[in-house]
């Protein structure tokens, strides 16, 4: 599957379907800090991503303190 990452914006290819939890774990991402989006729709933590999916891992952290 194609996985789009942000900050900086880039796309990585992951071979084979897998659960959301497993994908985040493999990429070393904290589930509190990203949302998983497939075709514009949120995928929950127990969701399964197919090999043909286009996936975005969108960070939710913003840095402004003021």
């Amino acid at each position, binding site marked *: 599957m194609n996985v789009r990452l*942000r*900050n900086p*914006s880039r796309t990585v290819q992951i071979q084979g379907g897998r659960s959301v939890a497993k994908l985040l774990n493999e990429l070393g991402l*904290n*589930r*509190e*800090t990203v*949302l998983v*989006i497939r075709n*514009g*729709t*949120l*995928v*929950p*933590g*127990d*969701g399964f991503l197919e090999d043909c999916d286009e996936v975005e891992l*969108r*960070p*939710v*952290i*913003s*840095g*402004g*303190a*003021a």
Partner: protein
Amino acid sequence: MKCRVCRGPAIIDVRRHNANFCVEHFIEQCERQVTKAIDAFSMIAPGERVLVAVSGGKDSLALWDLLHRLGHHAEGLYLGLGIGEYSDESGVYARDFAAARGLVLHEVDLRRDYGYDVPRAAAATRRVPCSACGLSKRHLFDEVARQGNFDVVATGHNLDDEAAVLFGNVLRWQTEYLARQMPVLPAGNGFPRKVKPLVRLSEREMAAYCIVTGIDYQVEECPMAAGNSHLGYKEALNSIEERSPGTKHDFYFGFLDRAAEAFREGLAQDAAALSSCRDCGAPTPSDRCAFCRLVERSGGRLPEHDGHDPATATGTPVILGRRERP
């Protein structure tokens, strides 16, 4: 994963509530949490005029959307900070949001209206850009609220923001900041009331809210904020939250319930010592406010004093050159 309310397919899990929600009931949950915060802390009374500080990011646009849905009279204020393409794009998101909903967006542009921008101010003061940015925002939110006769300024600070700020203030025992870290700062001494209606919602929930409601927002991080200590505090808290959901909520609301009161005495003393800035008339503890000093050091144009008295807040409204959209 099923929605806690309707048992339909869930789109998000909110682990600190041990709950999952479908789109419809997640939106309801966000509305409920904002209503609960507004009621619990007496943030906004019925009929009051609210000025929402809008950056073009997820939190401020979600806040504006939620206040509008909940029936509040909320107008937006966007500040052009002059941070290259980032600011240009952020302004587009804010304007498009307002135009699509027929909402009023006020704008102040630092470069156009005051002759400086955040990168220039950071270089002139030799401090981190977030310092000049925050100072400019705080001053101009107050100023536009005063000129526009708004009752309250609402900002998009969420639970993660407040927990991270609290974490940083506790690490350094910044007692004067701890005294001010409340979801509501009451009006007085020339300052409008300031409220944070998103304190019961996390950053992740705000991003999810934007996605499920179709709000297009600036996803990219501010290039000037990269690596700041605030982000480091968030990272540390998220590591704990991942292992122990609810920690951020307990940390922040535990502070409000059991510790905040102890720091308030210092806040009252500070307020009593304020006078009027000799250049712009804003309330300040010295003869010139920090904003005017910043503008001068950055080579910008000082604002004109319109003769208002911050103690009575009865000046004649003036226009800063801001544009309004219907």
